[in-house]
């Protein structure tokens, strides 16, 4: 193989490999992104529909018996829409357990913590410690 042939085959392989590998993987990025959006959207819609149905089934009988009280409940949302009632119940129970039955505890808001606790750090460290 002479120098010119070596240069030609080297340049063409580099170009072909670079372009095809990147094109295929960039295309996969788009496909996976689209897939994620579609599925997340569909799941959110399904969750919202479920919540709406639950709300309807709860509010309808109350409206017939005590319409005024129901209005008060609607005006005072106890949690943001992305926190489920089960999570609130678990957190409330944990807080209540920590403070004991003598303290009056009321959960006003629940926010995601940006930094990990010492316990969480220790757990993550244990699971991810390399070598």
């Amino acid at each position, binding site marked *: 193989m002479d120098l010119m042939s070596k240069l030609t085959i080297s340049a063409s*392989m580099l170009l072909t490999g670079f372009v095809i*590998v990147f094109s295929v*993987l*960039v295309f*996969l*990025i788009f496909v996976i992104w689209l897939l994620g959006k579609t*599925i*997340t959207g569909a799941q959110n819609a399904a969750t919202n529909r479920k919540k709406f149905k639950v709300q309807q089934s709860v509010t309808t009988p109350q409206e017939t018996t005590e319409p005024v009280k129901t209005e008060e409940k609607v005006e005072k949302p106890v949690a943001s829409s992305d926190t489920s009632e089960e999570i609130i119940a678990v957190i409330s129970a944990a807080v209540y357990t920590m403070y004991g039955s003598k303290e009056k505890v009321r959960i006003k808001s629940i926010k995601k913590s940006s930094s990990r606790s010492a316990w969480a750090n220790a757990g993550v460290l244990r699971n991810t410690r390399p070598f």
Partner: protein
Amino acid sequence: MEIIQNFLNAIQGILQDSGLMSLGWQNYVMIGIACVLFYLAIKKEFEPLLLLPIAFGMLLVNLYPAITAPDSTTLMNAADCIKAKGTTEGYATTVINGVQYYNVPHYGGLFYYLYKGVKLGIYPPLIFLGVGAMTDFGPLIANPKSFILGAAAQIGIFITFIGAIFLGFTDAQAGAIGIIGGADGPTAIYVTTKLAPELLGSIAIAAYSYMALVPIIQPPIMRLLTTKKERAVVMEQLRPVSKVEKIIFPIVIVVVISILLPDAAPLVGMLMFGNLLKESGVCDRLSKTAQNELMNIITIFLGTTVGATATGANFLSLSTLKIIALGLIAFMMGSACGVLFGKLMYKLTGGKVNPLIGSAGVSAVPMAARVSQRVGQEENPGNFLLMHAMGPNVAGVIGSAVAAGVLLNVLR
């Protein structure tokens, strides 16, 4: 007197058949190399699951070369056949110049048959089946941009291809050497058996050795190409990935890649099939078999037979030294390109991506991701990059399979 003569004849026969008379100096050198690999595998725990079978295959073939001998047929006339086998029945016949000969088969050595799985490209995809069943693609699905880093780390393959061409290898051999940069053992073996089977021993040993040396090779490159500030970047937590996404992912990947690059279909197909077995949640037994028993059996067959290709005559040559040097370059280039693309993503995202995760784009799962984690923690002990690095890491597996498809398509 006759008894003593018979005894001496027997001893002479045994000595003539023994390794003392039949083995050359190259075989003894290879036995020494096998012992070094034993040390690295057992004492240093460098990829022991593969290095140990490879070293044992290497040891065995250099002690008893006939273990890889192919099967053959001897033509015997009726008298010889009866003398040797006691009968002529059951043997196919061939007539030459009016004389009838019987085709008496001689069976090949154990590794000759086991090696068929390598030669026919059966073992590497089966290893990928197990790898798929053990891999969680969640980090990649949560952050598909990781594919870019998985692609960037494959550039080393094509740069090494150029180096191999200029060192006098043929284009097919250069492609097989370049794939070492993909840092993926089964892919390297698969491509080499198709493009340059004569280099299989050297390439497989170079590939697995460098994969084992990832924690030593990568950190200096990562530190050299990044600033302290970049290494200390704490990345945002990845979004949770739903079960449905994890189930659809392998199906989508196999459809896309098989349509675009059919040559990569056996590797990617089995990888994704293994992953689907795991994620579907309905094939628990199959998933466990793929991850454990099947994977272990194939690993033993693959390791020993690949090791058995490293005979003294094959391995001890200048081309092996060139392959080892080029493999190191491929590995370093792949890691460097991954980090450089990580830096690019760092700039484009306004400092949200830690460039250290780029080096995990060379496959070597999960070692390369662990190295990213470790180097990141040196700057900031509270920084946990492992899951972020797993995205490019598993993208690298897909990326190297795609690169293998390109090489096979162009060079075969």
